[in-house]
């Protein structure tokens, strides 16, 4: 369970408590502070006031339990997919290829592909970035606009994976400013506007 109380220039006095095992969508217009809030949870921005607890731990100690997928792919263009994953996996203490191959299969990528990531399509890069977010089986997934600029096939693969993770009890927090595919997958939405928490509640069908 995560609990946030934070305040920065972009986000003002947001106080949230999230239940484990549920799929949350963080919505709002551009500049509402959604990405900043997500980054605060991921530990990339420090709130000027307040603190963040993830499963009862401070962010620093909870990193092994978190998977973060940013808006940009954050991968080394000059390395291949598996090489990228191998490097990042070692940062999480994973030294065998097994979980990596597994993760790549789940996002629908071929682990034996030797092409450099610089030559991937955007959709493939997003999928690889997602693979990196899940290969250590984190309990909490943080995603920032995972579907933007992505081809429909990749979008579908990502959505299927998220549904699967939701079913196996992971907590998912996803930032987007469109709903589309998520209307059926998500449990709850959280609406931010001008850096403040405006609304939250269960996802209804046809929620635009």
């Amino acid at each position, binding site marked *: 369970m995560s609990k946030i109380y934070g305040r920065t220039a972009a986000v003002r006095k947001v106080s949230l408590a999230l239940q484990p095992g549920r799929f949350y969508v963080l919505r709002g217009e551009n500049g509402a502070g959604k990405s900043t809030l997500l980054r605060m949870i*991921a530990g*990339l921005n*420090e709130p000027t006031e307040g603190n963040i607890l993830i499963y009862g731990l401070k962010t620093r100690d909870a990193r092994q339990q978190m998977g973060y997928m940013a808006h*940009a792919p*954050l991968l080394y*263009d000059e390395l291949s997919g598996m090489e990228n994953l191998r490097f990042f996996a070692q940062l999480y*203490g994973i030294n065998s290829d097994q979980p990596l191959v597994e993760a790549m299969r789940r996002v629908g990528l071929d682990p034996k592909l030797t092409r*450099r990531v610089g030559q991937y399509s955007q959709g493939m890069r997003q999928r690889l970035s997602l693979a990196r977010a899940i290969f250590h089986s984190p309990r909490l997934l943080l995603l920032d606009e995972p579907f933007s600029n992505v081809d429909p096939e990749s979008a579908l693969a990502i959505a299927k994976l998220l549904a699967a993770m939701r079913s196996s009890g992971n907590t998912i927090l996803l930032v987007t400013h469109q709903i589309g595919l998520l209307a059926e997958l998500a449990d709850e939405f959280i609406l931010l506007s001008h850096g403040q928490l405006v609304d939250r509640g269960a996802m209804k069908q046809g929620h635009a």
Partner: protein
Amino acid sequence: MSLSVTRLTWINVAKDLRLEWRSRDVLNSMLFFSLLVVVIFSFSFSPTAEESRRFVGGLVWTAFLFSTIMALNQSWARELRNGVLDAYRVSPAPPEALFFGKCIGNFLLVLLLECLMSPLFVLFYNLRSIGPYWQLAVIFLLGTWALVVNGTFFAAMSIRTRNRELMLPLLLLPISIPAVVAMVTATTDVLTGELSAVSQMKFLAGYCVIFTTACFLLFETVLNAE
């Protein structure tokens, strides 16, 4: 699940070397730049072999400084270009491993450049050292580390400034002045054989220890400065 700093450092070094190998153009340009620096310096100051021993120390280290700054400026470029630093920060890996990995990678690169430039200096100035060569080797190693460790740290700082490439020398040079004084006088002393360079070597060793510790302690703070 081993997240030891040493192991991760080597992983970072290996990754950097592999990346460097894949895009060799940067390395080639730097090698050529170093060559040009030596040529221009030798062109501008061309004394006899006797006199040259006295000030070649200053020349050599100025040339090395140029090349070091060139090399350091692009040390974080790859991480920046791909935005990969965020991915590193989100992982449980300690940032010190990232820093030392970078330092060692830069250290090896700069040593390579120095190994290219030194024979050229010897050639152009008809140099022969009167003092022991092993002392020169120690001075080069310690001096290079002193520049590289602070340089990598300040290069990481420069990432968050507007004039990135300009910021690095502005930050690095004032702090390095004592080390440079030691390096230059030590090199001159060894080449001319007049004085012993042992005190300067101890000084450089102390400088390296102090600043390596400072960088180690403060790197995480600087990396996470928003």
